[in-house]
């Protein structure tokens, strides 16, 4: 089943067309990657998919509903979660509290019920905390539950953000350059976490610069170059695609970007 349909998305900034009529489908249960050299429009597309930005043309249909007309916090409730390239954790809060904050979307204790500490709110809180610890174990952060986010090593911060996103109980998880700045051990820990998440039935879209991770984990890849989609297919095909090779070789120095 097609979970996400990206249809002719175009986003312009002044005279620059950052994303130019991009269309693709994401089927339920797969890991789909969007790659491309720097300036290809990956981040712009990502912000459109998560309703942090609006496209000038086109639509993004998630399970039939158009995400481009919804406010960011509502698409989370509809089942679309995201992480950030520059992690947006709550630094003062512990890892567990960060994940609990993610459960905001699926819990319902309001101001009045919380102030009066109604018995059902205490139960909801306890269940949410249990679920948060389970998610921390899932991404391999079980030992770090009480550590403030600010004290976590860089690679683990990425995993914490993924756990927080999972706490919103998404059907679709969008990851913005999750491997940026990670060493190879951290990248393979990330890849394992992604497999475990997909096995839970969560569909994943990874926007990524790092070819290693993408070739390893993704079922299908969309390649962007200068805002346009230049190729789409499974990793083995993409690796040999002359247009893709040209786009990446055209970069002056791949190694010094992140």
């Amino acid at each position, binding site marked *: 089943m097609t979970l996400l349909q990206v249809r002719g998305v175009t986003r312009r900034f002044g005279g620059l067309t950052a994303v130019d009529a991009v269309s693709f489908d994401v089927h339920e249960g797969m890991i789909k990657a969007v790659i491309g050299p720097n300036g290809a429009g990956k981040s712009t597309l990502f912000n459109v998919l*998560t309703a*942090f930005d609006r496209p000038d043309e086109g639509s993004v249909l998630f399970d039939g509903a158009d995400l481009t007309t919804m*406010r*960011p*916090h*509502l698409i*989370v*409730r509809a089942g679309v*979660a*995201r*992480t*950030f390239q520059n992690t*947006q*954790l*709550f*630094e*003062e*809060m512990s890892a567990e*509290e960060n994940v*609990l*904050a*993610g459960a*905001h*979307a*699926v*819990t319902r*204790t*309001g*101001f009045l019920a*919380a*102030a*009066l*500490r109604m018995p059902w*709110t205490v139960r*909801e*809180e306890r269940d949410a905390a249990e679920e948060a610890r389970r998610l921390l174990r899932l991404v391999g952060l079980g030992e770090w539950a009480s550590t*403030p986010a*600010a*004290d976590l090593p860089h690679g683990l911060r990425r995993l914490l953000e993924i756990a*927080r*996103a999972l*706490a*919103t109980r998404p059907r679709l998880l969008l990851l913005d350059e999750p491997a940026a700045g990670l060493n190879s051990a951290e990248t393979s820990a990330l890849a394992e976490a992604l497999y475990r998440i997909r096995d839970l039935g969560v569909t994943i879209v990874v926007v990524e610069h790092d070819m290693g991770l993408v070739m390893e984990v993704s079922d299908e890849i969309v390649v962007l170059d200068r805002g346009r989609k230049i190729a789409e297919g499974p990793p083995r095909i993409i690796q040999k695609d002359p247009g893709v090779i040209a786009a990446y070789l055209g970069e002056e120095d791949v190694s010094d970007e992140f």
Partner: protein
Amino acid sequence: MRRDARTLLPYVVVALVAVAVLTVPLLTADRYLLRVLTFVGVNVIIVTGMALLFGYAGQVSLGHAAFYGIGAYASAYVVVELGWPWLAGVLTAVLVTAAGGLLLALPSLRLKGHYLAMATLGFGEIMRVVFTEARTVTGGPDGRSGIPFPSVGEWTLDSAGANYWLVWGAAVVVLVLAANLVRSRPGRAMRALHGSESGAMACGIDLVGLKVRVFVISAALAGFAGALYAHVVGFISPSTFSLHVSVLLVAMAVLGGSRSLAGPVLAATVLTMIPFADAVIPGLSRSALETIQSFQEDIYGLTIIGVMLFVPGGLAAALRRVASPRGRER
């Protein structure tokens, strides 16, 4: 077992402090001291709202004295002029200030940045003029006097001790409700909002809705405190609710520190007592007290600057260090 003792400790401390606070009138008959401590209780109620708004949700208001004033005048007006019972006056004060908070918050919180601070500053000035000019309601620059003591039916709270109990009883209830709030889902959302707005949005938190709710609660608490003040003191005038009171409230919140209720409550206690230092320091000379009073504003201003420079976490950070000496206070 040790873990149990640690989790129980905060409850024990809070219960002991609550009992200590509520037994004060049994231990002293000093009317002046009780009156000063009653003012402290009024400010504790306001600062609890400020702590939620500023310390937890990270939103700055420079106009909370205006809500304090609206609450005081609203209750005084309906009780004195319309003959409503005292409880109806307090309820009116809370509802009017909540509505005022909503009207101010909805437009200004939709915008990012310091618009809320500017809007509240402007609002405070507008209300100062209203308090002075709307004579039929407020009594003009001379204020409103002869506001009756709090009463329910035949029962009137006309002694210093009874007023102390009323105000501190209300303060304790407000603090317990606020403490429940901050350690559950809405409180976590407020801290998330303070930590990272993008991160909070990615958690499905409705930023505008949350900010507006917290603002309305803090405005209503200031209004509630204003109504208590009006009936306990019996006289109100525009100077009680001026900009410098708003600044004092911000000073309490800053000195108190973020993500804490105990810090701001302690700060409110200390800063409220400064002009009445003679109530707790028996030997204090008249001239020393006058010096303190005339430099009152400077003390508040220097407090804000000093805390920002030397104790970024405020009293809350200091309290946390005491609570967990080995802890990883950041």
